[in-house]
C-alpha cells in the first residue's frame, strides 16, 4: 500500500499525469482508501511541489505540470469518494480583469492554490465584471481572486467589488486582489478583504481569511 502511495506522490512531484493516473488506479485497486490516496499521495506531493516552488528550487513549468498531474489524480480518486468526504481547503474563482490580457501571475496563483487543496475555477484573462460574480455563485465560492497587471486596468478590481455591493452580494464572498501595480493601500481603498505580493503569500492569506470567516 505504502509503495503505491509513494509512487503516486513521486509522480505528482514529477508532474507526470500518465503515471499519476496509473498509480492512483493501482492504489485504489490495492485497497487503499480514496481519502488516504488523496491525503498521503496527492496532497503531500502537491505540498512538496509548492514548497519547492516557493524556494525557487523548481520553476513555473514544473509547478503547472504538477498541477495537471494532480487534476489527473483527482479524476481517478474523487468519483470513488462520497462528496461530503472530499476535503477542500476552499473554493476560489480566479481571473484577470476586463481589458487585461496578462495571466502568468494569475496562473501561478491558481497552481499554488490547487497545490494547497483549493478547488479553483479559472476564468482566464480579460474577464467581464459580472462573470466573476456569476461563476462565484455557480460554484458557491469562498473567494473571488482578481488579478490586474496594469495601472490602467486596476479599476477592474474595484468594479467587481462595486458590482457585489450594488447587487447585495458583497458579504457572500471574500475578495482578494493581486498583480503588479496592486498594493495594500489599493486593497484597502477599494474594500478588498485580502492582498498579497506573491502567490505563496496569497495562499496563506486565503487560508487565513477562510479560517477567520469560519470563526
Amino acid at each position, binding site marked *: 500500500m505504502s509503495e503505491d502511495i509513494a509512487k503516486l506522490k513521486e509522480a505528482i512531484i514529477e508532474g507526470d499525469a500518465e503515471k499519476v493516473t496509473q498509480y492512483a488506479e493501482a492504489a485504489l485497486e490495492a485497497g487503499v482508501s480514496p481519502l488516504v490516496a488523496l491525503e498521503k499521495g496527492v496532497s503531500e506531493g502537491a505540498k512538496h511541489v509548492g514548497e519547492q516552488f516557493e524556494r525557487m528550487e523548481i520553476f513555473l513549468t514544473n509547478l503547472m505540470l504538477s498541477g495537471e498531474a494532480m487534476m489527473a489524480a483527482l479524476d481517478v480518486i474523487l468519483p470513488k469518494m462520497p462528496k461530503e468526504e472530499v476535503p477542500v481547503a476552499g473554493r476560489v474563482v480566479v481571473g484577470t480583469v476586463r481589458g487585461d490580457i496578462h495571466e502568468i501571475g494569475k496562473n501561478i496563483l491558481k497552481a499554488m492554490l490547487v497545490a494547497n487543496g483549493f478547488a479553483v475555477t479559472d476564468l482566464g484573462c480579460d474577464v467581464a465584471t459580472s462573470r466573476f460574480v456569476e461563476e462565484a455563485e455557480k460554484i458557491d465560492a469562498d473567494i473571488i481572486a482578481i488579478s490586474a497587471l496594469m*495601472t*490602467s486596468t486596476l479599476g477592474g478590481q474595484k468594479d467587481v467589488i462595486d458590482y457585489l455591493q450594488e447587487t447585495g452580494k458583497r458579504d457572500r464572498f471574500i475578495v482578494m486582489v493581486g498583480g*503588479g501595480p496592486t498594493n495594500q493601500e489599493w486593497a484597502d481603498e477599494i474594500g478588498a478583504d485580502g492582498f498579497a505580493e506573491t502567490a505563496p503569500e496569497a495562499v496563506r492569506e486565503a487560508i487565513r481569511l477562510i479560517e477567520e470567516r469560519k470563526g
Partner: protein
Amino acid sequence: MLNILEITRRSLEGKPCLEKDYDLRIFAPRVQELVKEYDVTYDPNIVISSDDGLADSVFKAAFDLIVEIGVFNKDTERVISFTEKEVRDSINTSFDHALLGEGMEQRTLLPRKPESKEKPWIFAGAGGVTVSSENVFMKLVQNYAELIPIANAITTPCLANVGDMSIRAKSPLEIEGSIRTVVLGREALRRAGRPGLPIMNAIGTAESAIALASGLHPDFGLRKTDGYMIAQLAELKTDFDLLNRAALLQSLNVPIAGIHGPIYGGFAGGAEGTAITSTAFHIMAIMTLGASWTLCFPIHLKYTSSSTPELIWVASQYLQAVSRNTQVPALYYNYTAAGPCTEMVLYEFAAEFIGGISSGGSIETGGVARGKYTDYLTPIEPMFASEVAYASAGITRDDANEIVKRIIPRFADRVGDPPRGKTFQECCDPVTGRPSKECYEIYERVKQEVADLGVRFLY
C-alpha cells in the same frame, strides 16, 4: 524582416496550438534541451563572463529555438513559423541603426560590442512609472533633460489620472491620457531648453493600439524621430493588437523597438533558459516587427525586480549574444527592488549597468521600486544610472565582473524585502522639481563608492 501581412498570413494559417501546450509542452522543454545541447551554464562566481564562446552558444540556442518552435499568436491560437533561411537572412539584412531626435539633439543609435569604448545610448527618465498629476509629470521630464546632459533620449512617466479620474484601459480616458503624455512631454523638454530630444517610449500611457494611433497625430507633437515601442508577450508570444501597431508604425516609417520581459523562474526556467529566451525575443522582434532596436527587461518571478546575480548574468549573456551576432542595437532596462532616495537603489543600478554596458548594450534607466508605486521616482536615480552607464564604456568584462561582485553584497540580502523609499513629493521641491539635499547626499556618497571601485565618471 518579413512583411507584416506575411506575419498576419502565418498568424491565420499557421499550425493550430493550444497556448497551454505551447507553454508547457513545446517552449519550456525545448528551452531546457537547448540549454543542455549548447552547454549553457550559469556560474555564480562569474556574473559577467568574458567567454565569447558562451555568448555565441546562447545565440545559437536562441536561433534554433525561434526556427524550431516559432512565435505564438494568442488571438488565433496558431504558431507563426519561420524557416532557418528566413531567420538568417532577416538577421543579416536587419536595420543597423535608428536616427532619433531633431536639430542639435539628433543622434544615431548604433549597436555596440562587448567591451566597446563607444559611449552607450542613454535613454533616461521614468521608465514608464506612473505619476499622479500632470505637474509631477512636467517637473520630472524637465529635470531629466536638465540634470542629465548626457541623455540621448527621454523616457517619460505614465499618467495615472486624467483630471480627477483614474485612466482606464481601452476607454476615452486612455486616449486623452495618451495625447496629454505626448503634449506634456514635448513641452517639458522645450522648457528644459532641449526641444529636440527624442521621447523614446512614445506613447507611455497608451496600452492599446487605438490609444497609440490617437496620440500619433502630428498636431500633438510626436515626430518620426521619436522611439516607438511594441511589447512582445512572455514567452515568445504576440497578438493582433500588438501586430496592429507594427502595421501602423511600419507604414509611418518610424523606428520600432521590440520590448520584452522574459521571466526568470517562469516557463524559461532558470538563468540559462532566461538568457536564451531573452535572445530569442531579440530575433523575434527582427522577424515580426521589423525592429530597428530592441529593449529587454528580464524579471525575477519571485521578486519582480532584476538585480539578483542570476539576472545580472542573464542580461550580460543576452547583450553579449545579440551584440556579437546581430546588428540591431540592444538596450537593457531594469527594475530595481528598492525605491527612490535610498542607497540600495543606486547600488542596484550600478551593478546592473556596469555589467550591461561592458557586455555590449545600451540602456534605458529602469523602473525603481519595481515600477510598482505611483510617484515613487525622482530625477536622481536616472541621473546616477546614466552617469554610471556612460562611465562604464570601455570597461572590460573581467573588470566589470570584479566591480559588480563587490557591489552586489551591498544590497543582495535586501532584494526580498527592499526599502520602498520616498515619493517625488517627499524628495523634490514642489516648484522646481529639484531633488532634496538628502537625495544628493546619498547620490554623492554612492557615486564616490563606485568611483573608488574603478569607474571613471565623466563629471
